[in-house]
């Protein structure tokens, strides 16, 4: 792997990690909201 390839590799991996982190954070927020709604309605 050349240095350019390695830089590209790291960039792609970093982008994927950030995207995955954002998706996970969004799911945490969503499930928190769902829990509040479900508990609040007695369901």
């Amino acid at each position, binding site marked *: 792997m050349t240095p350019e390839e390695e830089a590209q590799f790291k960039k792609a991996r970093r982008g*994927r990690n950030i995207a995955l982190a954002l998706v996970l954070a969004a799911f945490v927020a*969503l499930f928190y909201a*769902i829990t509040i*709604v479900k508990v609040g309605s007695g369901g």
Partner: protein
Amino acid sequence: MTATAQTQTLPAEWRDFFALTKPRVMSLVVFTGLCGLLAAPGHIHPVIAFTAVLCIAVGAGGAAALNMWWEADIDAKMKRTAQRPLPQGRMRPNDARDFGVAISVASVLVMGLVVNWLAGLILAASILYYAVIYTIWLKPRTPQNIVIGGGAGAFPPLIGWVAVTGHITLMPVLLFVIIFMWTPPHFWALALFVKSDYAKAGIPMLPVVAGEGATRRQILIYSVILFAVSLAPWWIGGTGAIYGMAALVLSGLFVILALPVAFRSRQEEDKMKPEKRLFGFSVLYLFALFAALVADRLILGQGIAS
């Protein structure tokens, strides 16, 4: 699997995974799913409603990813689809398959646990229908593949409706049938004026297999069926006059625009104006019809009858 895929060293970017979910198709899925949800009698909490629409969208994305995984070799042969991540070798085929399975399963489980299990079950059925029955089994085998594929696109309003009510009645089934009947004339109008390379890829599209004349006749047949089916929700008392009038006008226009398409044939240097007009209108038609359905429900508050 291609050689480029095997020797690939770069990991796929997140954009490649996003592209697997066919985001543009997803926007229509979200719209019709949301309309089914809003038109259904009853009420669910906005957070639950949001979750239901999200699950419909993610499930559709999972089915799309599985479709692209299976059709990578076909996509590579067609100009429109050759730029997709798999034909380009930007992603390992197994990664696409696993991604598709993972988000499909997740969407069904979340739908079942958070919304209701009937909605989750129908979502699972719609994903299997598109990924297995349509993509793997029937699309490469029959020129009626568009009719069958339309079934996959017809699920979202049904799922949205069941997310609210928890049971199936005639009304959501009619919404399903409307999109089912709408898809063939919509797609075949496009197929008449767009030079596609399905033939090269070995997919038996109707204009190629049965000829233009048969395609034009079938466009009219489906348009007339669509006219009757789109009025059915009003006849059975499931909607009020707002939807009824909108369906009458919109579906009437659809048939009127389909008539010249059905009774003409291609000339030298043909601009294909009637076909382009019908296709353009068909997109507007679906949005307007479902918007009218929701408006009817919100303004007149009907839809309880069935």
